[in-house]
């Protein structure tokens, strides 16, 4: 199954289960969870079923295109279901069958992994799904988002599309994947991986990025105060990405990381509070 067909199959699978299909966000995100559809959607008391692909940037995971599975930018397939159906584990497993796995032939483990995003002030309880020792999905019952305790609870499924494709296509290396009949993953992404790795690890200007971070932080705060929650959140996302970039440059110590995280968390928490107030007013 080609990479793009996996997406199509998952789209069709989840559409049949009542999910609306939306699109990636146009601001850099580190994971599908950062997409406003998930961040604000899970805060709301309204039911939600949605699925989308999210290109996710993690500068520290870049390997100059030399590693078989690590990438600075990979693709997540994100599903949010609120409320969480009682059969959700079985539904998830049947989605794997639908994209072509014969599960009984493999070792499948739900391995404890309590997901947390300190920058989103978000926490959940769940698992990594290990498929023959390879992590292919993060499965989480969100408990908290933007510092707010959630009710109702959403379940989040995050498929790692590259890893799933490697297993399905029987490749050893992500760059050998077939995106479609004509195009390989290497043709599409290898040079980008190489250049971004060089940039992220070696050339990103620490001094300039610290300045941009501070400017984005201010922009976020200034607009959150005005009740412009969504623009404020965009700048919080930018801060999050810039922080990841600083991190990949090795420019911050363990201790200092905490400070940056606290600064970003303050922004996202304020956005969450603003959003809740907005929804309260609507009712």
């Amino acid at each position, binding site marked *: 199954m080609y990479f793009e067909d996996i997406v199509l199959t998952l789209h069709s699978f989840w559409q049949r289960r009542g999910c609306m299909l939306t699109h990636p966000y146009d601001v850099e995100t580190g994971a599908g969870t950062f997409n406003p559809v998930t961040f604000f959607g899970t805060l709301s008391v309204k039911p939600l079923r949605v699925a989308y692909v999210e290109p996710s940037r993690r500068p*520290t995971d870049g*390997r100059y295109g*030399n*590693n*078989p*599975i*690590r990438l600075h930018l990979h693709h997540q397939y994100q599903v949010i279901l609120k*409320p*969480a159906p*009682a059969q959700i*584990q079985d539904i998830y*497993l049947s989605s794997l069958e639908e994209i072509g796995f014969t*599960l*009984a*032939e*493999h*070792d*499948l*483990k*739900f*391995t*404890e992994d*309590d997901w947390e995003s300190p920058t989103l002030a978000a926490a959940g*309880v769940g*698992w990594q799904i*290990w*498929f*023959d*020792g*390879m992590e292919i999905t993060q499965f989480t*019952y969100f*408990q908290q988002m933007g510092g707010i305790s959630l*009710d*109702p*609870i959403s*379940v989040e499924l995050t498929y790692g599309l590259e890893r799933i494709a490697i*297993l399905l296509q029987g490749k*050893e290396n992500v760059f050998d994947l077939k995106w479609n009949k004509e195009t390989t993953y290497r043709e599409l992404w290898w040079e980008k991986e190489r250049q971004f790795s060089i940039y992220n690890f070696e050339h990103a200007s*620490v001094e300039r990025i610290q300045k941009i971070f501070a400017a984005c932080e201010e922009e976020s705060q200034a607009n959150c105060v005005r009740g412009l929650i969504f623009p404020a959140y965009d700048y919080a996302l930018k801060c999050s990405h810039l922080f990841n970039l600083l991190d990949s440059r*090795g*420019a*911050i*110590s*363990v*201790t*200092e990381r*905490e*400070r940056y995280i606290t600064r970003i968390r303050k922004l996202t928490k304020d956005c969450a509070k603003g959003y809740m107030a907005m929804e309260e007013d609507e009712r």
Partner: protein
Amino acid sequence: MNADLLLEIGIEEMPAAEIPDLMQQVHSKAAVLLKDHRLVYDRIKVLSTPRRLSLICYNLSEIQSVMTEEIKGPPVAVAFDAHNNPTAAATGFATSHGKRVSDLLRQKMGGKEYLVLHRALPQLATSVVLTSLLPELIVSIRAGKSMRWDSSGLEFVRPIRWIVCLYGNAIIPFTVGRDGLASSNCTRGHRFANDIKLSSVDEYEARLAEQLVIVDPQMRYQRVQKAIAAVEEREGVTSIANDELIAHIVHSTEYPTAILGKFPVEFLSLPREVISTTLYEEGKFITFTCGDKFSTYFLGFRNGPEESYGIVKAGYERAVQARLRDSQFFFAEDTKRTLAEWTYQLRAVIYEERIGSLWEKVARIRRLAGEIAQRNKQPNLDDIDRAAFLCKSDLVTKMVREFPVLQGTMGKIYARCAGEKESVACAIEDQYRPRFKGDALPVNEIGVVLSLADKLDTVVCAISIGEEPTGSRDPYGIRRQANGMIRLILEQEIDINLFVLLTDLNELYASITDQRSLDGVLRFLSDRLEQILLHEYGLTYDVVNCILAESNMAGSVMNQGNFYRILAKGKALVNARNSEGFDSLVIAFARVRNITKGYKTRQFDPQLFIEAEEKELWREYLKAAGQIKRLTEEKDYCGVIGYLIGLRGPIDRFFDKVLVMTDDKTQRSNRLAFLTNLSDLFFNIGDLSTITVDTNS
């Protein structure tokens, strides 16, 4: 007829580490509830897999056991009138319970006689009791970390999805949660096997086994151990597996099947710590040694049967290879430079925004380590400085950024790669010890100094920026750091005064700290020391108060900075407190202490002494002071206490005969100043007046 009871709580995969405690709770809480409800049985067995917690209660009685309840009525004195006829009080009590007065007994309670009704409690059928007892049991189980998953109002370690409850061969019907999750006789097999409809409790374990579920963790444990032993014997290798890893495997599989994989020989060029950490952290795989070499075998446990062994093995090997490739990348990148070269990178790494870079921290550690070593009269100053220079360099390496648990260990390995001395390399790893309560201390003496310097610096920095721990909040983990440091000083008998050290080196912290925060550091460390002396050395409160007391001598707080000596004083006191004359010494000193409290002048003139008793005390003081000074330097605190006991007689006689608070102002000041000097002598041990003495003896 008695029968066996089965309760199975079906749960989405629970965290392996929580399961043993949850099983324990099921066992003990069930026992309490059954007892409270007067249900008797032979024994309880608790079983589990990642997806179920099961309770089997053997030979459970079919009905509650007999019990009579006593209901207290009116006192006999008011229950009958003068003619011994029942009063309204007696008849009222009897009829309200549907009895006659003649049914009541008389019983003495608290010296008074009462009418009492003995009534047999109803004996409910077990099947009825269970319908409320079992839901109560289920919701009483507390997870270490619980979650919510729907609108049922239930909270548990993971979502509860099904409940099986059979008593003999009958379903006990009940529900839990607002959404009414109902019990049944349907359980589930392994994820990829079939569901099971149970017809009796007896067949539970066997029917599950048919569907690839070994529900007894003890049996899975044996299966895992046997598989490891088989590999060891067949391949001539020795496993590197701790109890924690084995327990993890047992509690994360319903049907563990060993899969032996191999990784390519090329990865053996990686240090073995890196290989085993990579395989452990990333996939909970077991690694092996072969003689003194590392083996390329690794063992994983599939949750499922032997079938399609080859497919799973290939999958494991691919996953392991990808991870080792990653570690190889880190190692290659990291060793492009020597460890010393990485040190210079620390300039660009912020340790803490308000404090500065890691480079600056290293500079402080070098200075502190050097001073500690010198004051502790250690010979290897150059090696200590080298180790301090290199101690944080591995933090910027890619390997440590990926596997933080390897901090220090990679420093050691990279130091060796760069040809540093072995003692220097080992010290880099040792600096983090002790990492937790009960962890081993550093083994080499350079490591001891480095560990002390690093922890001291962290504590001073955190407190300087106002991050002193409060309640459960301790963002820099400095309680643990301080405890480790104090343990090191006490156990390694390091004769160093931290407070004097910090004061002498105050220019190190000039830019971030002031006198007030330095006082905060001393207070914080004293508090930690106090806790350790009380709880780990078992010293009593009065002894600890005594040795940690400050005198009114200027700079007396500085004396509290030598933790090793403080402990030595405490031990000497514990020894001395049963010896002859000690109690009266305490009482004698209390008189000195009370009268001189708050008095600061120490200038006095022996020529002014008039009474024989004050002259005697003065002579004895002089004799003792010289000896005590010498003994204190030699850390012989038992000896010091001996000389203090010698002063008891002269002190008592002094107070019997000499009036200190006389109207003669000159005499009064002179005597107070002298007694203050005497009090100072006692403070070589502490404030002895705080020691509790049995005044009756």
